[in-house]
C-alpha cells in the first residue's frame, strides 16, 4: 500500500469519527458554540504540535500563504455549511451537494497543478463522489422493532 494512501485513510477514519462526536455535541449546544470549541481544540492541538514542530524562518512566502489560506478556507467552509443548514436547506440535500467539493479540487488540481489521473483513478474519483452523496442521504424512517 502507498504511504500516502495510509495517511489519507487515517484522515478519513478520524474525520468519520467526528461525524458522530459533532452530532453528540450539537445535540446539546448550538452549532456556533460547538464550532467555537472545535476551533479552541485546534488551537490546543497546535500548541501541542509546537513541541514537535520545527518551525524555521525562510519558508517560501507562497507556501506560508497557502498554509494560512488552508485554515481560513476550511474554517470558512465549515461555517458556510452551518449557515446552509440553518437557512432552511434540507440536511440530506445540503450535505449531498456539499459532498461535491472534491470534484472542484480534482478540476483545479488538473487545470492548475497539471495533475493527471489514470482512467481507473478517474472512475474512482467519480465513484467516491457518488458514494459520498449516497451516504449522506438519510435512511427512511423505519418502525421500531
Amino acid at each position: 500500500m502507498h504511504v500516502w494512501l495510509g495517511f489519507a485513510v487515517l484522515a478519513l477514519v478520524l474525520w468519520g469519527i467526528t461525524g458522530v462526536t459533532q452530532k453528540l455535541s450539537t445535540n446539546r449546544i448550538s452549532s456556533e458554540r460547538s464550532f467555537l470549541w472545535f476551533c479552541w481544540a485546534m488551537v490546543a492541538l497546535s500548541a501541542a504540535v509546537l513541541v514537535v514542530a520545527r518551525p524555521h524562518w525562510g519558508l517560501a512566502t507562497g507556501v506560508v500563504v497557502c498554509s494560512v489560506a488552508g485554515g481560513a478556507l476550511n474554517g470558512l467552509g465549515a461555517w458556510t455549511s452551518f449557515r446552509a443548514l440553518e437557512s432552511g436547506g434540507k440536511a440530506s440535500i445540503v450535505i449531498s451537494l456539499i459532498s461535491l467539493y472534491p470534484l472542484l479540487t480534482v478540476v483545479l488540481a488538473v487545470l492548475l497543478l497539471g495533475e493527471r489521473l489514470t482512467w481507473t483513478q478517474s472512475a474512482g474519483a467519480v465513484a467516491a463522489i457518488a458514494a459520498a452523496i449516497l451516504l449522506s442521504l438519510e435512511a427512511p424512517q423505519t418502525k421500531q422493532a
Partner: protein
Amino acid sequence: MTETSRWRRLPVWLFWSLATIVLWGAWGLVSKIASGGVDAYVNQLLYTAGLAPLLVFVALTVRRRSRRESSASGEGSESQEKRAARARGVFWAFLTGILGGVGNLAFFQAMVKGGKASVVAPVTALFPMVTVLLALVFLKERLGRVQWVGLGLAFVAIYLLSA
C-alpha cells in the same frame, strides 16, 4: 431574466452550499501547493493562524448571543442539569476539534508523501462511510438501501483510486 434577478432567486441555503463547495474545493488545492514546502506540523500551526480570525468572529457572536439570552431569561437561572448538558456538549465539540485536527495532519501528510490532490481529496471525502458504520454499530441506527449502496461504492472507490 436579468443576472441580478437570477441571483435574487437563488435560495440562501443554496448560496451557502455552493460557497462551501468552493471553499473546501480550494482548500484541497492550496494544501497540495503548501505540501511542497512545509511539513505537516508546521502546516497545522499556519492552518490555525488562518483559522484565528474566524475564531474571534464566532467567539464574539456567541458572546453577544449569550448576553442577550441571559438578560432575557434572568441571570443565573440555568439549571444544573442544563449546565451539565452544556459541559458535555463542549466536551464532544472539543474532542471533534482534536480528532479533526489530527485528521488534518494525516490529510496533509498524505499530500507531503506524494498523494495527488486530485486523489487524496476524493478518498478523504469518503469519511461519511466511517460515520455511517459507527452509527450502525454503536448507535444501532438502520441504514437505507441507498446508504448500503453508498457504502459498497465507497470501498470500490478507494480500491480504484489507490490503483
